[in-house]
């Protein structure tokens, strides 16, 4: 079996001391970020990109991946204990998880969240290993037209699954595409929209923009409400981690359903962990015999979304590793990390860099195991961290981000640009524009332009190439269908309903 040989190879790579350490560091930093509200995964990964310069590529990616799934764990801990979701992915976990904590059942809630996440993580790891090879073969059948259509589909998915206005989300994507055009043209080398500023000749740094719209903008926005957030900690001691037999019986099917749903939504471009947790919660509520239990401490309401977000966080690596297309903003940053280390993501990575791919896959499983072992005993420490007041945290984040951006190119202009994008991001939030599609557009922009140009060159300027090639036509048809569905009033109402749950 090739699969087992590959996995064995991966584990051999991942078990080297340096990679184990990277995995642990990633998982811990991820948990920390997940616990602290006001600092998100995207900003952290952007902030830590420069730090990975000095590391070997495998170790760097293992650490960044660890941050991503570690944050899913950390977010659930604070959701349950103090009703503050550290991450958007655990907003729904707070609904039932915190109710359980109030009833003195914080222990079982934490345990089920951890077990569900671990189980989902294991399944997702196997899934990546199984689907990796066939999808890579499929990718080889892709020409430029198919690639372009696939990216269109991915962006449309991002729009449909984003909350708020479809029109505004598309506008954000196109804004991102335009931003990606700044700098030298790939084919002619002509300088585009750079206004003779030498620092812009290479294009806008992706980490710079990400740190601006996600890091700085978020901080400025949080300051609007006053730095002191309302934090009423659950003070009582956590007793008895073990769930009862009934808890396990109740949550097993929920974990299974959450895992399946999360895995599927993770693979789809534009999906990701946030959507997966919302969808899993909604599904459980629909399937439940007695839906009124939800919101009052139903253990399924913890098990399903926690499994789903962890599964999705991991399966979203599949399109990145096989097709070279990042399905969400964090994966887009992973592309940035790979590029820094001279690795071009895409089907060839699997063949040329087996160490990297399989090592990372194996490290995910190890990381999940580490998380379940370190997290439950450390719960007390994480909760204590929440008492660090925001008035001290935010200037630290500002300074840390500034140093981080500066160190990428040793360019002070980059720091100023990030500040400008911070203000742009603040304005976008005030006008209810979502920044995530902007980032996705910015990452996919160069890839899209390149494939569009190539496809039209091959077809001698005939635009019908996108519909005359069957694979491309199918992808575009799905995209068009999704867009129509998203604009239909009945489905819109349903979609909004899913998001309203989070505010309840």
């Amino acid at each position, binding site marked *: 079996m090739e699969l087992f040989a590959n996995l064995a190879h991966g584990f051999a790579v991942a078990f080297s001391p340096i990679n184990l350490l990277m995995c642990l560091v990633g998982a811990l930093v991820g948990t920390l970020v997940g616990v602290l509200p006001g600092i998100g995964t995207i900003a952290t990964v952007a902030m830590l990109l420069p730090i990975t310069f000095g590391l070997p590529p495998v170790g760097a990616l293992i650490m960044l991946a660890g941050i991503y799934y570690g944050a899913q764990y950390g977010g659930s801990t604070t959701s349950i204990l103090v009703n503050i979701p550290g991450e958007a992915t655990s907003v729904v976990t707070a609904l039932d998880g915190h109710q359980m904590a109030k009833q003195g059942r914080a222990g079982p809630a934490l345990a089920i969240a951890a077990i569900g996440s671990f189980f989902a993580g294991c399944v997702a790891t196997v899934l990546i290993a199984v689907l990796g090879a066939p999808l890579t073969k499929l990718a080889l059948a892709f020409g430029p037209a198919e690639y372009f259509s696939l990216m269109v589909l991915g962006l449309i998915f991002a729009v449909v699954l984003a909350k708020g206005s479809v029109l505004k989300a598309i506008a954000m994507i196109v804004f991102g595409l335009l931003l990606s055009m700044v700098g030298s043209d790939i084919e002619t080398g002509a300088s585009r929209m750079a206004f003779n500023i030498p620092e812009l000749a290479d294009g806008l740094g992706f980490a710079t923009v990400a740190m601006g719209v996600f890091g700085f903008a978020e901080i400025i926005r949080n*300051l609007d409400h006053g730095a002191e957030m309302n934090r009423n900690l659950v003070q009582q001691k956590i007793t008895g981690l073990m769930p009862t037999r009934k808890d396990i019986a109740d949550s097993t099917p929920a974990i299974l359903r959450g895992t399946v749903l999360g895995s599927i939504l993770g693979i789809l471009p534009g999906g990701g962990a946030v959507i997966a947790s919302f969808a899993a919660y909604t599904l459980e509520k629909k399937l439940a015999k007695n839906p009124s239990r939800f919101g009052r401490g139903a253990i399924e309401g913890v098990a399903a979304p926690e499994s789903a977000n962890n599964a999705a966080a991991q399966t979203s690596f599949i399109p990145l590793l096989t097709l070279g297309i990042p399905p969400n903003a964090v994966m887009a940053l992973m592309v940035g990390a790979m590029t820094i280390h001279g690795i071009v993501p895409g089907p060839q990575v699997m063949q040329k860099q087996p160490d990297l791919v399989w090592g990372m896959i194996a490290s995910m499983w190890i990381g999940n195991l580490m998380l379940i072992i370190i997290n439950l005993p450390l719960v007390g420490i994480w909760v204590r961290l929440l008492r660090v007041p925001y008035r001290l945290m935010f200037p630290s984040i500002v300074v840390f981000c500034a140093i981080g951006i500066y160190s990428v190119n040793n360019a002070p202009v980059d720091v100023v640009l990030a*500040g400008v994008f911070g203000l742009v991001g603040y304005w976008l939030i005030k*006008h209810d524009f979502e920044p995530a599609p902007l980032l996705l557009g910015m990452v996919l922009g160069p890839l899209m332009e390149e494939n569009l140009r190539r496809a039209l060159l091959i077809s001698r300027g005939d635009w019908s190439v996108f519909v005359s090639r069957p694979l491309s036509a199918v992808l575009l048809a799905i995209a068009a269908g999704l867009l129509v569905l998203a604009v239909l009033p009945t489905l819109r109402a349903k979609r909004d309903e899913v998001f309203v749950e989070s505010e309840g």
Partner: protein
Amino acid sequence: MSDTPSEAPVKSILPKWVRGPQDFVGGLAMMAVALFALWASSDLQGMHGFSFGAGTAPRMFAVLLLLLGGGVALMGVLQAGPHIAAYSWRGPLFVSAAIVFFALAIRPLGLVVSAFAAFMIAAMGSQETKLVEAVIVGACLTLGCALLFPYVLGLPMPMFPRFLIQ
């Protein structure tokens, strides 16, 4: 994201027929970005034959954004929507000031001075900042960064003001 105030309508400079000021202004701003991009890429080469020039794709996406921005603005006219959210000045001002100061100071003054000063400037962005506490945390953070970036991570960076070293 519920930054939109729901209180009684603030005095608006926009005409009455604008029913969703937030979308209306947002759409107009997107159109402005698109027009700016069109102007900025106007000097680039367009299509020649059936191959793209350097300016083809930027202009294509700019036109698309112009249309989408127009659509958003139109929605702001047709559909009742939220008012423009209130902006606060303190947070944005001090956080931006800290960032700009850091960018200007890092080369001549080095990491230690610029990181600490940037921390203090940013801290002023909130009314709840206590001076002594901020100084202590700022100093610790500066020390931590001064050890982390150049030594642990091996990223070259000036540490102290230039005039002190020379």
